[in-house]
């Protein structure tokens, strides 16, 4: 057999022993266990390096059922369950925005998606909140104003990250930390017990939402509208439930798409907040993007190898013979670029 021109050596470059299961970046073969370590380590390093999540803090994970946010849930679970010294130390909650109305799903399909998501969320044991996109119609105008910046968990001028960690560790010692995996929830959160089956919104509300989307003239505008409404619903949930931090699952690929899309849309001024690790435009609620260093490929492989559950939903509706949105074009461009020139 002639050697295949486009194949890579089959031994893991990290441990030098295992059979490589995938190629990361440009020509780096990794075996499955080394890949897992690499993936998990990257998440913890992201949080550790950036030092914005304080110990004991409530963090709302915004999830979509998609691969990146599902992988994010798994990293949080893994991180919380480690031995006490290296354990992640925040208190997670989950929020899911059901968008079936604008994704061409029938009521039955929406119910099915909701049921699947609820199973997924319940399995984590974290408190979770399910919202319908229709609820955006009820958002107060105040959502558009950034909330007052919090001055830190103590209410006085906030402690530095190091101080917060030190005092947390001291507190733990006093309380006799038993090292159990999931931290207790505050009394205001509903624990994930058997909830009422979520009902879909009124048909009238769904119609009103759809009218709003149909009025958006282009696929690009529609995409922007969806993202904006979703973000506002998530921020509102965070505020209402006492979360000062929100984690979203934007991967590197997704962040890059956003960057170029926003440039195309004339939003260059917002590049830093739109794509950075932290986003403080909402004032009292900070958005954190711990998945932004993972490529879509890494996430897909991780989810497959380690059985991370996901729920697939159809894309945002488009009209017939409509030109693709800028988002889609940019995604197509970037993903193609990644194929041909992986070092870009």
């Amino acid at each position, binding site marked *: 057999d002639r050697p295949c021109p486009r194949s890579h050596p089959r031994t893991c470059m990290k441990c030098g022993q295992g059979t490589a299961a995938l190629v990361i970046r440009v020509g780096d073969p990794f075996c499955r266990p080394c890949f897992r370590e690499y993936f998990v380590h990257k998440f913890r390093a992201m949080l550790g390096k950036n030092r914005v999540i304080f110990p004991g803090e409530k963090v709302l994970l915004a999830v979509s059922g998609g691969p990146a946010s599902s992988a994010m849930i798994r990293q949080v679970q893994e991180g919380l369950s480690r031995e006490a010294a290296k354990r992640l130390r925040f208190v997670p909650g989950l929020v899911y925005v059901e968008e079936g109305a604008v994704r061409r799903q029938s009521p039955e399909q929406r119910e099915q998606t909701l049921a699947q998501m609820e199973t997924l969320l319940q399995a984590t044991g974290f408190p979770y909140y399910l919202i319908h996109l229709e609820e955006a119609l009820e958002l107060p105008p105040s959502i558009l104003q950034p909330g007052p910046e919090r001055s830190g968990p103590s209410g006085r001028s906030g402690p530095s990250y190091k101080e917060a960690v030190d005092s947390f560790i001291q507190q733990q010692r006093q309380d006799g930390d038993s090292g159990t995996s999931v931290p207790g929830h505050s009394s205001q959160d509903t624990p994930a017990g058997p909830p009422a089956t979520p009902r879909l919104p009124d048909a009238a509300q769904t119609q009103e939402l759809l009218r709003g989307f149909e009025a958006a003239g282009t696929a690009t505008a529609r995409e922007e509208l969806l993202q904006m409404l979703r973000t506002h619903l998530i921020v509102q949930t965070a505020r209402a439930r006492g979360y000062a931090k929100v984690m979203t699952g934007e991967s590197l690929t997704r962040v890059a798409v956003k960057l170029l899309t926003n440039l195309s849309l004339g939003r260059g001024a917002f590049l830093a907040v739109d794509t950075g690790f932290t986003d403080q435009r909402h004032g009292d609620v900070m958005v954190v993007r711990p998945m932004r260093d993972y490529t879509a490929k890494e996430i897909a492989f991780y989810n497959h*190898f380690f059985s991370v559950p996901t729920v*697939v939903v159809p894309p945002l509706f488009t009209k017939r013979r409509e030109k693709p949105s800028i988002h889609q074009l940019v995604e197509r461009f970037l993903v193609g670029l990644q194929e041909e020139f992986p070092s870009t």
Partner: protein
Amino acid sequence: STISVVHCFCFRGGAELLFDGVKKHQVTLPCQPEPWDIRNLLKWIKQNLLKERPELFMQGESVRPGILVLINEADWELMGELDYKLQDQDNVLFISTLHGG
């Protein structure tokens, strides 16, 4: 060779939507003089399994960028990509990474 081979293709991450929502296909590829490599396999899939919008799955003779290919649970980049020669009972998995959040 002229052995007919059985393969299993799976479609994930939304790729299944292009194949009538069917995630798993077990097929016996017909005997033919040309070797069954991934290149030929893709041609066959396009002709026989792909129900709609071929451009969402394929680009030229390969898969569209954003579609991952795993051969027996390994990245096809390790196996020669389109040139990989299929063996009996091989499992090929296609995962779409587009629309992933």
